[in-house]
């Protein structure tokens, strides 16, 4: 199932971002970072672990969504950047490489070893709690409140998405 730019824009609209703003169209999430593209690659690397394999179009979806989310929220952006740095620190300690350079299996093992899978998300919490909040749950929230993410599970109008008042009345498809 393909994630589209429309999914990302819908997810952004549902999170209160005015869709079509400059950053979404032209900007760069990590523009003032020494290695902006590396940061984005790291976020995409997390998405590759936490998103199911049957979705495609992840890169454009994540780029569009993440840019919109942090555009007018510098604190939130700092939180994301901090969590990405933390993730790289753990990856370098255990595997001598940044998170984005690890293979899929190793990436997942880093998240597991950090305890991100069982961590309670907390924007001001411990390392795993921040990684869970700013990276893992950020990406999962974007996916599973989008129409395509909902369809994956069998709900056309997932909670958090303004999908109208038609679908609740309909029975399951043939």
């Amino acid at each position, binding site marked *: 199932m393909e994630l589209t730019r429309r999914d990302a824009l819908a997810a952004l609209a549902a999170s209160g971002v005015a869709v079509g703003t400059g950053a979404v169209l032209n900007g760069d999430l990590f523009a003032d970072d020494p290695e902006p593209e590396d940061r984005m690659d790291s976020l995409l690397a997390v998405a590759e*672990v936490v998103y199911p394999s049957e979705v495609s179009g992840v890169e454009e979806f994540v780029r569009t969504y993440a840019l919109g989310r942090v555009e007018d929220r510098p604190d939130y952006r700092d939180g994301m950047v901090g969590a990405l740095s933390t993730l790289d620190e753990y990856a370098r300690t255990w595997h001598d490489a940044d998170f984005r350079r690890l293979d899929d299996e190793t990436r997942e093992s880093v998240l597991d070893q950090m305890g991100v899978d069982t961590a309670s998300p907390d924007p001001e919490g411990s390392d795993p709690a921040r990684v869970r909040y700013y990276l893992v749950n950020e990406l999962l929230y974007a996916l599973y409140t989008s129409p395509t993410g909902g369809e994956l599970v069998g709900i056309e109008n997932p909670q*958090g998405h303004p999908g109208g008042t038609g679908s609740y009345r309909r029975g399951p498809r043939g």
Partner: protein
Amino acid sequence: MTGADRDRTPSERADVCVVGAGPAGALAAHRLAKQGHDVVILEAGKRFDFEDRKRRMERAIRPGHDPLSVWEMGGPRDRFTSDGEWFYPLNRARVKGVGGTSLHWQGMVMRLHESDFEEWPVEYRELRPYYAEAEEALGVAGAADNPYAPPREKPYPMSAFPPSHSDSIFAEACERVGVTMHSVPNARNSESYDGRSSCVGYGTCKPVCPSGAKYSADHHVEKAEQEGARVVDRAPVQRLEHDGSGERVTAAVYATPDGETHRQEAREFVLAAGGVGIPRLLLLSESRQYPDGLANSSGAVGRYFMDHLFAGVGGTIDRETRQNHVGFITSECHQFYDDPTRGTEGTAGGIPEWSSEEGEPVPDSIKLEFLNYAGPSPVEMALSGEEFGDDLLETLREGYGNSIAMGGLVGQRPRKENRITLDHSTTDDHGNPVPEIHWRVDARTKAGLRRANEIQRAICSELGVDVSWTVGPENTGPAFHHMGTTRMGTDPDESVVNPRLRTHDLGNLSVASSSVFVTGGALNPTLTIAALALKAADHVDERL
């Protein structure tokens, strides 16, 4: 001007000072302003920006945030003590701010039944025109298909939301056991109404409606302002002052964020700060003349605190139920409201009549609900899951799709010992004693919960539900409907306000709130609060 530097000094000349900007205060203020009176609303909480609602919704869905933070409740301002046999989670039960608790309410709006007024000094027929006006004001989507509802004079302002797929599953079983399902009146737009959009299905009604399709009282606060009313937010009223004779309130003393204290004088005062805030304010306003609290010659201020209790049964079923598309319900049942002991006969069996266990009281009214949000939503499961990727998706697919559940409300009779007092050992951010809640669930209420579960289980059993949870007598919780603490009556020795909603003791002090309820029934109280607020406003207008 930002919230911090807004002018919060008193109005020089005010006809009416309204304390509280929830549904009761907003509707009363709007009506009085429209009638040409100078109205000032004092609200303890802030004015929330509508544009922030989507972010508040995200806070509600995503773990990692205190649920109270969605509407910024808690902290020193909102301290309380719960000292009863049962803990009462007060700050989860209210919102302070422009719009009040309607910012996070569910939005179900039924008229009380005629039988509910037996102990009230007003009858249903007296409130009936106010109910109709309240339905117009809030914007109610409903249908006249409830055979147990009291008589009405005209259709609801909007057509009802059609039944859900889940309702259609219940309908089969209900027919077999002789249980009648009917629509739910919702204060939620099924079409555009009064400048607000129709529901777009965010599915997070409680605690946040990002579209504004669910009614919230900030809407009528704005309408009141358009009629000339003035709103002072972040202005908690500390006490009320009265004249030398003790017959009239002269001023509401309120604090502002800059540390100042002001006096708002007015000819009439309307208290609309909820079933806990109102008795607390009256108790805080004790004086030489009123040593037990203002307007409390009866001793009833704070007493007879009531809530509704939740009863529910849920589980899974071997078919897709299509839950969590919307955050509101579309079918309910009042069949066991006026007589909860009755049995039923359907096409294949029925609900047996009530049979008391030894010493068990007979239950009071029961309202039953058919939920459209049984079980967790996929996004909630994903955000608190312990797997990623394909494993997570598989778990979500297994966990979503087959949940089904019923809910319901059971009422409590007024009991003198269930009450709000002041806890002088704990103070709020202004040094005032905090409210202390003394509350318990009595045997009759527990009997009602047992009866509700019995009916719910019979329906679920007929459907073949694999029941995995029950909320009943031992693990119930309050529905956050604060009632009874300044009860209405004709006898000044037994009640706080008269049938015109004015305090017996003070000639210019009215109460617009569920705190005036004499009994609580088992229906969500806000429509009745709204009707009473409009009635109170009319009586204030008559005096001005």
